[in-house]
């Protein structure tokens, strides 16, 4: 469990617009085999850019200026994602690292059945696979996330939001990748469905042993599911530690602010909401005036 599966070193991403936006600044971290690493931060802090950068999915004007993301395979060889040719990159994506995208509910193709979208993965990455075997495998994958295999013939609009999300997760697992990156996989779902999906992810992680990078702005949720948590702000990781330490003994001021910003269900924290107006609560969201004004 202690060997790293991914090492990210001095990773920086700029958006080459005027003025240049430094979205990710000199980020380094290690992802251990089989662990769930939470990546927390507000909108616009660079957490999605970092994730997309790792698998080289960024399009111009985004540019990776420095740094590497090195993948350490289970079989004992290393791959630097920056050195791969476009052909190799295409083969390595989804096979080694797969992704559940933000708004995954809408990232299925609406005019193709779930079966065809599943089979597409195998046709691309496992061309030697027989048709019958492929069919079998697609059904198994769906059942693994708790969706009936008869649903393979369905089109995305015939499935509920939670089911579509499960289908996306099943697809991300299709090639048994060693890392799964999940970008806000449950934000559009209600709490009950969210809970089911999180249980599913934890169960599958225990079963298959993949590592997860879980990106969200919902810190209470991260505290529940992750082993370690990285808190990002303005493109930098300000604090990285295991969940328990981060919660009981936050070191960075910003982590403290984030921790104080959600109410507790059973405790007293949060009862100030109906107290006197506290302008400090909105200070994080103040209107900035200045150079950006048109």
């Amino acid at each position, binding site marked *: 469990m202690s060997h790293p599966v991914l090492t990210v070193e001095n990773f920086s991403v700029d958006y080459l617009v005027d003025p240049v936006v430094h979205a990710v600044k000199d980020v380094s971290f290690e992802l251990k085999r089989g662990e769930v690493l939470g990546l927390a931060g507000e909108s616009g802090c660079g957490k999605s850019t970092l994730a997309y950068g790792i698998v080289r999915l960024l399009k111009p004007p985004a540019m990776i200026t420095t740094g590497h993301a090195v993948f350490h395979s289970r079989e004992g060889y290393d791959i630097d994602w920056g050195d791969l040719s476009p052909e190799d990159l295409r083969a390595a994506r989804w096979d080694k690292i797969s992704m559940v995208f933000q708004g995954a509910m809408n990232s299925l193709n609406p005019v193709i059945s779930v079966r065809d979208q599943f089979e597409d993965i195998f046709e691309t990455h496992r061309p030697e696979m027989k048709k019958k075997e492929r069919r079998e495998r697609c059904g198994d994958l769906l059942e693994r996330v708790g969706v009936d295999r008869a649903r393979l013939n369905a089109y995305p609009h015939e499935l509920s939001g939670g089911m579509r999300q499960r289908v996306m997760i099943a697809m991300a697992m299709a090639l048994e990748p060693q890392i799964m990156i999940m970008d806000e996989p449950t934000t559009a779902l209600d709490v009950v469905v969210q809970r089911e999906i999180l249980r599913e992810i934890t169960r599958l992680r225990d079963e298959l042993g993949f590592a997860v990078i879980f990106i969200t702005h919902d810190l209470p949720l991260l505290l529940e599911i992750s082993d370690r948590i990285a808190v990002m702000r303005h493109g930098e990781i300000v604090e990285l530690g295991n969940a328990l330490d981060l919660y009981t003994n936050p070191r960075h001021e910003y982590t403290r602010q984030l921790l104080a910003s959600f109410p507790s269900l059973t405790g007293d924290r949060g009862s100030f909401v109906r107290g006197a107006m506290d302008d400090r609560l909105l200070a994080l969201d103040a*209107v900035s005036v200045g150079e950006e004004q048109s």
Partner: protein
Amino acid sequence: MTTLEVRSLVKDYRLRDGLRTSTLRAVNDVSFTLDHSRTVALVGQSGSGKSTIAKLLLQLEHPTSGEILLDGKPVARRGSGLAEYRRTVQMVFQDPFASLNPFHTVGHHLERPIRLHHPRMTNAEVHRRVLHLLDRVRLSPAENVAQRRPHELSGGQRQRVAIARALAPEPGVLIADEPVSMLDVSIRLGVLNLLATLQREEDLGVLYITHDLATARHFSDEILVMYKGEIVERGPADDVILNPRHEYTKTLADAAPNPERRLGELRR
């Protein structure tokens, strides 16, 4: 001083599947009272009928049976009575990215309701009011914000514009349908705190629709738990959350992220 009362409200939708029709009872025999300066939270998962109730209260849908009473009088179906009802009952929508028109400035969004409800006001007065509203939702400098368009603001700032817009006609009841669920966790409490402050200042009755039990508990006086169109549990906020009696309330409470529980397990 406004009281909104709902008595055994029922809403059926007809579903068609080819030639067959069936009815879906979205809201089944719901009654509650929304008093001035009190907050009632309506919690439940997607599809439980929460938003249908909001639509019924806003007169966007008509109930199949049951009645809605404003200060003891049934709602007028047309004319000035309905206009007056619409002024009194205002709404804050879930998605501040969709509820503001990207083409218009923030100032325009606030001017519209003021002009509609006070047709004789002069331009200078309207403008003063717009700035005053922006100040009240703590969007400063107001003069500057009024000229901006929605895309120049963050989600939390946009939602505050939406709140200012709802307050523009000086309502007595505010219906907030998941007002903070699209916002970053770090600013949710700030927006709720602002909403509670404005509620006190204006003596508003607030219906807070949400699936987040933690904020429902701290933000409201009374909680109604909805499941499949019916209210399965109701009571003072702390009672419902700390001693849930109905099975479904327990499921909801278990599903809510609760770091204390997990960390308790980790420590062991």
